[in-house]
């Protein structure tokens, strides 16, 4: 399983079509993957497991999200004022 994730990561070009977000407005797609990455990291750290599989979400949100949003959200997580549930 870890191999195929590594393979997927190696072959990554850009975010693939996600049928959960079929329309033009991809805000939610960016938001969801940002959340999923950080939730994945947190969960893996809590279990003491390998967080490599979380990299997929990171790649997707890096492809989709405006950099200013990511910076603003990272700052807020730092300050403890991030409104999303991680």
């Amino acid at each position: 399983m870890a191999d195929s994730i590594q393979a997927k990561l190696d072959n990554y070009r850009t975010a693939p079509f996600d049928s959960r977000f079929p329309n033009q407005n991809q805000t939610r797609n960016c938001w969801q993957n940002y959340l999923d990455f950080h939730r994945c990291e947190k969960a893996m750290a809590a279990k003491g497991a390998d967080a490599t599989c979380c990299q997929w979400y990171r790649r997707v949100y890096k492809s989709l999200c405006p950099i200013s949003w990511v910076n603003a959200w990272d700052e807020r997580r730092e300050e403890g004022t991030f409104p999303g549930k991680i």
Partner: protein
Amino acid sequence: MAHQTHAYHMVDPSPWPLTGATAALLLTSGLAMWFHYNSTTLMALGLLTTLMTMMQWWRDIVRESTFQGHHTMPVQKGLRYGMILFITSEVFFFIGFFWAFYHSSLAPTPELGGNWPPTGIHPLNPFEVPLLNTAVLLASGVTITWAHHSLMAANRNQSIQALTITVTLGLYFTALQAMEYYEAPFTIADGVYGSTFFVATGFHGLHVIIGSTFLIVCLLRLIKFHFTTAHHFGFEAAAWYGHFVDVVWLFLYISIYWWG
């Protein structure tokens, strides 16, 4: 042709439309002065002239109808259409605020945390005072129907009692809401939640106050024998308005208090 040969009411010349228009101008410019230059003089003047216009115009209508007999059947029919159209326009007014609420709450943005209620907002428990408020308004609907039937049955004591209870319930609602507003853990400035909540419930509360005022005037007129068992359109109009206000509250309660 010394007298009118039709059943309609050709109203005598009256200054109130002009004073009303002036009042509207004073109110709107007064609002602008208050918002931008921190002065309330113009607005106070606007409120005063609006109040005086309303009181004198409606007093004239009571004089023309109850005391001078100008409100024949066709005239009354026109007034019914008018009241229905007015209430319909108010329905659309509220539809706008419900639209705003659903626009923001059905697809909550990342700034809110992607959820509704937004992160950090603690909504009021719908099963506490809001539920009492629902019961109060529903009860007022019952009592005003009781008052209406008593009026039509020429039962003076019961109609006065029932209308008094209706008014009391309306005032009770206003008092409860005022207390809720004071005690609420969030304000109108708290993001889109605060905005949608207070603008929608705020305009509703204003309409409750308007409705209660209308009903108080009806109560006074009822006590002074203005109404007959078959002709009491002012009372019916107040009852329609009261029911409308109650229905708006039910939608508010279900959408904002409960689902929201």
